[in-house]
């Protein structure tokens, strides 16, 4: 077991999937000889050949639609969209077909595909390369949305997504791709898809986040610990469906909740969690639920992106305000 980055963990899971599942194919732009622009698909072409590792023409609607067709006929396509900013042509296929095929045919056909895409800001990327629009997909019935936040979870959750019988949008926080290393066992063990991960137990306040914002959230929790505040930190990981049971149990104990997300706040995943807490956990709350989000603006180009993304300071400020309620 060696220490690897998240991008290497994604690559490892893809290798494992390809090795053990002859129905699995990989497709996308620049995923062959180039190994993907972030190198997620390195060495797959060499190892599994051009019949299973398919460099496509430049067309995202085609990539998603072809994956739907492949999946309907028993293949397990794992398609890469080069950046989430270019996923929108694929939205039509995911909304109109991937999420509905099973239902439309009452189970006669299904759509076991994965659509992977790097997402999120913080790497000084050009325009359209930094947004976090996971809520668009979380809104769609029939889809699953998964976001890992570490190498181990990337490996286990991607394997789970590949083996899942339904379409999964697998969003990779590219700021974390090379941010940290972890020991990842290439044992083929998948992680559960409907379960949050409690990264830090605590009793004073519940912090819920996912993707790259786990980093700032954990920094905030450490800072709070040094100030005598014991925060519980939850990595949502599966954006849809949401494991509300774990969140409700936690908030049932702490009575306070701050949700941290990079995305714009209106109609976001954070909004959904807050709504569910209001519906199912209101009686255990000591303070209003707070969301620390990106603003409802177009994500600024990178010279100002740091002002958009929630900082540890903004998280701490929200936590302090939440703790002020007796």
């Amino acid at each position, binding site marked *: 077991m060696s220490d690897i980055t998240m991008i290497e963990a994604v690559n490892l899971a893809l290798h494992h999937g390809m090795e053990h599942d002859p129905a699995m194919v990989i497709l996308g*732009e*620049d995923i*062959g*000889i*180039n*190994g993907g*622009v972030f190198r997620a698909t390195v060495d797959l072409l060499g190892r599994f050949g051009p019949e299973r590792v398919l*460099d496509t*023409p*430049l*067309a*995202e*609607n*085609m990539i998603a639609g072809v994956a739907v067709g492949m999946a309907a006929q028993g293949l397990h396509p794992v398609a890469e969209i080069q950046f989430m*900013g*270019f996923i*929108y*042509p694929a939205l039509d296929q995911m909304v109109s077909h991937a999420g509905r095929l099973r239902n439309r045919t009452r189970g006669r056909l299904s759509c076991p595909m994965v659509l992977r895409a790097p997402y999120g800001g913080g790497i*000084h*990327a*050009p*325009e*359209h*390369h930094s947004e976090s629009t996971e809520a668009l997909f979380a809104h769609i019935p029939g889809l699953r949305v998964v976001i890992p936040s570490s190498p181990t979870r990337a490996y286990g959750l991607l394997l789970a997504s590949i083996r899942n019988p339904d379409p999964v949008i697998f969003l990779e926080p590219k700021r974390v791709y090379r941010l940290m290393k972890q020991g990842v066992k290439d044992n083929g063990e998948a992680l559960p898809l409907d379960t949050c991960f409690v990264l830090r137990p605590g009793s004073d306040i519940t912090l819920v986040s996912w993707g790259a914002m786990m980093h700032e959230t954990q920094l905030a929790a450490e800072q709070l610990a040094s100030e005598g505040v014991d925060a519980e930190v939850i990595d949502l990981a599966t954006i849809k469906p949401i494991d509300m049971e774990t969140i409700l149990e936690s908030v049932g104990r702490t009575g306070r909740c701050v949700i941290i997300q990079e995305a714009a706040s209106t109609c976001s995943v954070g909004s959904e969690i807050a709504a569910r807490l209001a519906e199912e956990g209101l009686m255990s709350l000591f303070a209003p639920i707070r969301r620390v989000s990106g*603003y*409802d*603006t*177009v994500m*600024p*180009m*990178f*010279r*100002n*992106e740091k*002002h*958009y993304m929630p900082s540890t300071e903004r998280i701490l400020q929200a936590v302090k305000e939440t703790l002020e309620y007796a």
Partner: protein
Amino acid sequence: MIKTTSFEIAYHQFLQPNGEPSGGLPPLARDTDTLHALYHNMVFTRLYDERAVNMQRTGQIGTFASSLGQEAIGAGVGHAMQPDDIIAPSFRESGALFFRGFRVRDLLLYWGGDERGMSNPDVGDDFPICVPISTHCTHAAGAAFAVKYRNEPRVVVCLIGDGGTSKGDFYEAINLAGVWNLPLVVVINNNQWAISVPRSMQTKTETLAQKAIAAGIPGIQIDGNDPIAVRHHVAEAIENARHGNGPTLIEAISYRLCHHTTADDATRYRSDKELEAHRQYDPVPRLRTYMTQQGIWSEEQETQLQTDCKTAIEQEVQHYLASEPQPPESMFDSLYATLPGELESQRRSLMGKE
């Protein structure tokens, strides 16, 4: 059997790679001012690209896309357009943008992650650089409808890459332009690569120009490294469109002598041999040789031009480097014509006033 369409795709070149004329030359080949303007733009663009790539390496701008080896396309297109025409550019055509009035400082701001790069009011109503590939083709068609609707003698020119022609947007735009007889010229910079994907893996058609046939519009291929061919044929298509004769698709054959962007390493997928074999088609020495042979270009002029361009670029670079970032709350200030009240409070909280 019904015979519908059979076709041939014309290929146009005036200057051979060695700078010798390949046959009869158009009048502009004798027009010293035009040739000088094209050459100036190409040299300027090349020096700008070189400087920008270095600035990326030292963290002064972000990811940057050079147009090394493809300068004749930007120059020819930019020069062929009238000031009132409208350009819908991709992200690789800096030379055309310089002709349109964008300054080096604007483009550096853009690649330096600052929205003001696309805000220069002197640029008129040209579209900003388009990053989501091919999505701007339909904007170009819409703009072409708008000028036609208002009976304005203006033409829209859309620039796109070879990879971009695989997207539906491209076909949807030229198809509509055909049906509605729009004043639209689409120029493909076929630089043979879409990042790591070679042209042969984009489409099985022998030319990209023939995609026009399926839209029922004229399609031609030109030597995109021959600035005279680009200038002449793009201008011809533009004037055709201006006179109500509808759209044209032009495939300009070139070659990407650089990495895709500064974030790319082309040695992973492209052989040195292939790259080296294409250096002989470089458009810059081609035009220079021709002008020298015509007796309208000298060593002294070359030295002077290089110095002038470098000085001008350096001044612009200093302008860019001295620019202060926009205030953080600027992210709210161009979002809507009037900022909704709800966002006003977000804006205040960003400014620490709440």
